[in-house]
């Protein structure tokens, strides 16, 4: 028990035997999955493999029917709501970029900054120098420093994706879940995004869901292949793309 516990606390994310079904359809089927601290992991799989549902379970949006989901080996994710999970330090980027369109780029970051989240804290909140420094730092990282005063609605699609990643950074999470970060990006933007993610992965654990194989190649990290709600294969991209079963269900189609 004790050794297991130590084993667990070493992991950032620990999913075991997770199943979720919607009206008889099994979105996740006995899924098990572990992320180590500082690790960046790519998840691939055909449509309906359960990638988004897995994200939903980790962030508390969907409750699993059975299974264990632990964060940092001690927090039971199946019992917490989205806000508490976010406060624990899990950030999530959606498939479609969602930023606060009627706020400026800067305000988007301000709202995401790690800090007190209670109603009356925000009612009387004042901006501080520390905050300003942190914001500038994030804006630099996501290359939007010169657009800080623009309305988020006026950003290009790629810039919105970056802004969203920036919002995650401002949250300062220990685990980032990034859903299809390069969907709809130009090639140049895709390359820039890969660099950005690698930079982030230096001091965060990151899970990236992506369809784009060349992007996954660029990341050069361990890959997990999902199929029909459970893990089909795990390993480097070269290894999984040589796997017969993976070729059958996904790559070889």
């Amino acid at each position, binding site marked *: 028990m004790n050794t297991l516990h130590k084993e667990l606390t070493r992991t950032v994310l620990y999913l075991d035997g997770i199943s979720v079904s*919607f*009206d008889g359809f099994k979105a996740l089927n006995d899924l098990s999955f572990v992320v180590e601290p500082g690790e960046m992991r790519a998840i691939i799989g055909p449509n309906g493999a359960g990638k988004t549902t897995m994200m939903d379970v980790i962030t508390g949006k969907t409750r699993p029917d059975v299974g264990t989901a632990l964060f940092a080996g001690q927090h039971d994710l199946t019992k917490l709501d989205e806000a508490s999970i976010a406060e624990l330090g899990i950030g999530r980027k959606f498939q479609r970029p969602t930023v606060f369109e009627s706020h400026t780029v800067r305000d988007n970051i301000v709202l995401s900054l790690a800090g007190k989240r209670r109603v009356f804290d925000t009612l009387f909140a004042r901006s501080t120098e520390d905050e300003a420094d942190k914001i500038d730092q994030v804006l630099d990282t996501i290359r939007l420093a010169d657009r800080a005063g623009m309305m988020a609605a006026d950003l290009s699609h790629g810039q919105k994706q970056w802004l969203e990643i920036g919002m995650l950074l401002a949250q300062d999470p220990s685990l980032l879940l990034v859903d299809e970060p390069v969907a709809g990006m130009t090639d140049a933007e895709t390359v820039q995004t890969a660099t950005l993610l690698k930079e982030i992965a230096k001091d965060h654990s990151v899970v990236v869901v992506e369809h784009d194989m060349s992007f996954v190649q660029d990341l050069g990290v361990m890959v997990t292949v999902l199929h029909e709600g459970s893990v089909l294969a795990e390993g480097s991209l070269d290894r999984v793309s040589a796997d017969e079963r993976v070729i059958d269900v996904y790559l070889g189609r």
Partner: protein
Amino acid sequence: MARPLLLILQRIAFVLVLATAAFSAPAQAQSIPDLISRLAGADFDETEKVVEALAATGDASVAPILEALGEGDLYFRRADNAVFIARRGGSGYLLTDPITGAAAGEAGRRDVTKIRVNNSLRRSVRAAIGTLTLRSPDARVRITAAQSVLKSRDPEAIEPLTAAIEAEQDDSVRFVMERARAAAILNSDSDDATKITAVAKIAEKSDQEARAILLAASNGASAELGEAIAGAVNKVEGSLAMWSAVQNVWYGLSLGSVLLLAAIGLAITFGVMGVINMAHGEMVMIGAYVTYVVQELIRNHAPYLFDVSLLIALPLAFAIAGMVGMAIERGIIRFLYGRPLETLLATWGLSLILQQVVRSLFGPTNQEVGAPSWMSGAFELGGLTLTYGRVWIIVFAMVVFAVLVLVLRHTSFGLQMRAVTQNRRMASSMGIRTNWTDALTFGLGSGIAGVAGVALSQIDNVSPNLGQSYIIDSFLVVVFGGVGNLWGTLVGALSLGVLNKFLEPYAGAVLGKILVLVFIILFIQKRPRGLFALKGRAVES
């Protein structure tokens, strides 16, 4: 197989009875006119004999004469000893021939003398009338006679009833007679054994009357009889409670089917298309006004068509409300897809406009919409009284629902509609004209609301505000049942209807309604997507 035969036998028996009556009449010692003429100047004994003889004729036509005698309205004319029924009027009395019932002129006060009766005579008269009507060839008259005894519980009626029961051929009439006799026995000074048998007889049919009779009989009853009565009262009350529950379910289903009718169109526009149409109630109102106009035209030009007026109104209401709906969809709603709150406001505005249009055209007051003959009246089923109007509305709601389900399931339009609502882009790339489908779908939902209006015109006031009273209820039904699920709407409507009617006896109509609203509000907190929610990832986004 057995029933027609029985009916024929009954008819034959009936004809035979009539025939015997006709043959036996001349064989009587004296004819009715002779008997009546004996009344002139008769003493009490003589009158008594005449009454007995009249009763013995078995001819129901003497009943009015006996009634007049009992009430002291029978007189004879001094001049010629002719007997008349006389009532005050004119300068003295208005005379009526007792046998033919024809008017026979007037008479001064001094010209006629009353045929006097005393209490014992009155009793004989009443018994004689009872006997006569109990023997009437008309089954309805016999039942009425038996029922009057059931009310009066007059012990004097026991004997004539016993005789009548022996002669009775019709089971249902005999049943009432036996009950009446039992009631009379309980009111008499018969011995306990007889009374206990009578208690059992009364308890055979459980209604308020049986309860009243039994409770009245328990006064001053012996221990044994009291026990029997208490047992019987328990049985009757249990059965009454059961029937009142059944009655509540029936009222609830009836209310539920009204809700269903109002909500079913909304289940399409809101449930399937996701469009918040606050003018939905006005589509119902338009349907009701179409009914009104159709009936007005029929009254003025072809009154013989009145009974089919609703059948004529149905397709018209569907078409007109459907076209108004399509115009709304093309003119306003299509610009607001994906903006539900704006749609809500715009269609609310539209509902104000439609109400005002109707108010300008037809005036603000309620319009008279009549019920065709096949929708009026009622019938009994066990302990229930069902009105035809309600029955037809339930049937109609179910038919509309079934047709709708069939259309959605089994027609190509239904398929296209489902395709468009599930994946617009895919449907469009497969060659479905999505715009056209949207308009038709909305038209279908509105048309059904119009059809509902035809039915609701039968039970609600047809006024410009008609729709307003249904809009909140309809939305709650759809939300409660689960958006996007027709069966949910069906179950939601019926269960809310029944819930409402079960609360009413305890809480009263208004408080009952408030409780139902509170219930739904709380229910939606518990299950925000309704009873039969679609679950999954897609609905959340």
